[in-house]
């Protein structure tokens, strides 16, 4: 085997790329994993992991200079001194916003698996059927039953903390003990149950923070709530803590950082990919690597970008564009709407430790006979806590009174934010801008995505229902809010190379194969046919493991 030839190439090293590498190498394939950014070695390169606020020159805050360098990132919380450098450089890798789009990219080994929210839920059976029933976009080519065994498989390996609830809207999985609710949350859960007769549920979040040690790398969550700094305890699922060590252990994995895949090489006679061409991000040299199969896991937008730049001599719009759907049907989860309230009493109760997750309220709208003037639904994520030193103390003036008052915990408050399903809409799309180029001379993406009527109607309920639940639970000073949402802020980009049943209306088939190149598999958010309202990463994991299993079978049968 020549040094540039492998059985499989995996493009990207994030959540789904890591899974592809693990599964394919464990099945005996020689795999090359390509990462466009720098390497990050587990523990060693988590240089801020043990820093405290006082160890940072600006105590962790974003400076004006950082905002100048990262104008898009500066619009929300991810820009700060602690994770600076973990997000893609906007000067080197620009994009165009026809409509505002906040694109949070992590160009580095592990991708956003180091920077994710870790909330891990299964889609439910209805999620896979809703498009078909409602005549929206296209029907998923798979059903819950197709993915269910693979959810089992990835949950057992990834380690998800949570509780089994027996709810049809949020299928149970394999869980480690949950991250505890605190005294207030437990009582609010009971009051919600009483007030809504069991039609609404206030449960433990399900999170890829492990509450039991797994091995010497994955010691378990230490309740520091510093996940985004990289966890030296392997306390949550990331490529570095979980899939990469397994893939490396096989001896079958080669990892090449600083490798920007510019196109998938395509043999139009055989209708197969033959490998990829890359640019070395440091030297600007180009290289070719060959393989029997290619897994595209570059994150939803960059996976679509790669297809758009491949086989352009056959299809002007690139590999997968024959459907007319490549780059279309962009989805995210719309949020930043919900309610907060004060909780009276519980002055004799406090908590120890810092949780990386709180409570969850599964979808209840358009479910179980409920019918709204919009389709689909939303879930809530939230937590209760006591105010820290930042409390409204305007009346306390200055000096020792002020110091004493703000050194003690304040009253309990509770808040929750809704995450709503966004419908796939053909006009929500990304496309190449041939004029503007990035640092490496590659075309950049233009974003043209909006939320529409269904989402706007849903947002009213997302606020109103949160207020209603808190009021029904007897909480005080209940305040609804909607602080506006711009697409991308959910950091859940999906749909740009959707799965379907027909090559005329979808980019991928039911096994995540590109219809026009069956040895190319896309198993990240790009593949999603609809969004559900639950956090999507667990589904990418399951989908990737399923596709890898199928790919190796097909290889053995000589079908690829």
């Amino acid at each position, binding site marked *: 085997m020549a040094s540039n030839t492998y059985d499989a190439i995996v493009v990207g090293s994030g959540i789904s790329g890591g899974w592809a590498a693990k599964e394919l190498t464990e099945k005996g394939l020689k795999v090359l994993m390509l990462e466009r950014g720098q*390497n990050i070695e587990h523990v060693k390169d988590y240089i*801020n992991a043990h820093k405290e606020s006082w160890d940072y020159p*600006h105590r962790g805050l974003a400076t*004006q200079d950082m905002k100048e360098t990262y104008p898009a990132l500066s619009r929300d919380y991810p820009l700060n001194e602690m*994770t600076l450098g973990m997000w893609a450089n906007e000067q080197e890798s620009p994009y165009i916003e026809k409509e505002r789009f906040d694109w949070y990219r992590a160009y580095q080994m592990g991708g956003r698996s180091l920077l994710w929210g870790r909330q891990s839920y299964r889609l439910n059976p209805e999620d896979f059927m809703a498009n078909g029933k409602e005549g929206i976009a296209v029907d998923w080519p798979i059903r819950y039953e197709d993915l269910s065994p693979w959810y089992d498989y990835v949950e057992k390996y990834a380690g998800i903390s949570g509780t089994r609830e027996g709810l049809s809207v949020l299928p149970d999985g394999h869980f480690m003990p949950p991250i505890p609710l605190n005294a207030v949350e437990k009582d609010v859960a009971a009051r919600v149950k009483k007030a809504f007769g069991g039609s609404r549920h206030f449960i433990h979040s399900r999170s890829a923070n492990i509450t039991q040690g797994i091995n010497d790398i994955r010691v378990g969550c230490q309740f520091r709530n510093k996940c985004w700094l990289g966890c030296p305890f392997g306390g949550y699922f990331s490529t570095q803590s979980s899939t990469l060590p397994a893939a490396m252990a096989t001896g079958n994995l080669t990892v090449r950082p600083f490798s920007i895949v510019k196109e998938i090489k395509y043999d139009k006679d055989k209708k197969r990919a033959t490998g990829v061409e890359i640019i070395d991000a440091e030297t600007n040299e180009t290289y070719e690597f060959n393989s029997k199969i290619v897994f595209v896991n570059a994150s939803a937008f960059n996976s679509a970008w790669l297809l758009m730049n491949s086989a352009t001599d056959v299809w002007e719009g690139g590999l997968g564009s024959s459907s007319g759907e490549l780059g279309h049907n962009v989805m995210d989860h719309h949020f930043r709407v919900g309610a907060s309230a004060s909780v009276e009493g519980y002055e004799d109760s406090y908590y120890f430790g*810092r949780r990386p997750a709180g409570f969850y309220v599964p979808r209840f709208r358009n479910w179980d006979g409920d019918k709204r003037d919009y389709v689909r639904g939303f879930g809530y994520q939230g937590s209760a806590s006591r105010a*820290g030193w930042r409390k409204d103390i305007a009346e306390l003036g200055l000096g*020792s009174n002020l*110091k004493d008052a703000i050194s*003690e915990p304040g009253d309990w408050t509770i808040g929750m934010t809704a995450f709503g399903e966004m419908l796939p809409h053909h006009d929500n799309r990304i496309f190449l801008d041939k004029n503007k180029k990035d640092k490496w001379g590659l075309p950049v993406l233009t974003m043209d995505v909006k939320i529409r009527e269904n989402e706007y109607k849903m947002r009213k309920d997302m606020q109103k229902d949160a207020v209603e639940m808190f009021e029904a639970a007897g909480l005080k000073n209940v305040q609804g809010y909607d602080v506006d949402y711009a697409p991308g802020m959910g950091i859940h980009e999906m749909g740009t190379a959707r799965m379907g049943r027909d090559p005329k209306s979808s980019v991928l088939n039911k096994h995540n194969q590109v219809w026009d190149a069956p040895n190319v598999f896309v198993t990240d958010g790009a593949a999603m046919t609809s969004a559900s309202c639950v956090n999507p990463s667990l589904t990418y994991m399951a989908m990737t493991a399923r596709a890898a299993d199928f790919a190796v079978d097909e290889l053995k049968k000589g079908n690829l």
Partner: protein
Amino acid sequence: MNRRDLLKFITAATGVAFVGGKALAYENLPVVPLSDTGFSKEDVAFFNELGEVIIPRTDTPGAKDADVGSCMAVLVADCYHPTMQKTFKEGLVTLKKRAEKEYGKDFLLLSAEQKMELLSALDEEAKAYNAKKGIYGDVAMSNPNAGAPWDEELVAPHYFSLIKQLVLFSFFTSQVGATKVLRYVAIPTKYEDIPYKKGDRAWAT
């Protein structure tokens, strides 16, 4: 893994993390020298004096113990929007003049009671001023990095609100403030309900 093994692991992990060498992804920013802030040692001493009135040493350390002044200089230089920088700097001049006018002395030479009297008056004026400007919420409790370079219509609060904001943020994010005045446990290892009795300190984060 038992607790002892965990402690060993923590020690090892901590060592490795600090020995890291070349900063790869997360940027390891250097400490900002005072000469880069445009403020002098005298300015820092003055900030510490202001800070000590707002957060005095009691049975626990105060603003001077935490050297809030050095932190304030860096925050104003690097994190403050130009509009806030201007308001803050002009405010310092105004404050010093007011001390001279009302007490016939440099602020630093005022008695503790006089300092408290002056700053308390400013605190009241700041509240009224902010309300008139339509600035709601407690500015003093917000992060000292509002606005981005391209924001041209940022409305600055009263300068004393900025002073108070810088002192509180610098103090409670300092090691002294977080660990000696508030409570902080670096590696809690668990999350659980605990009883609370009046007087127990809040967690730093």
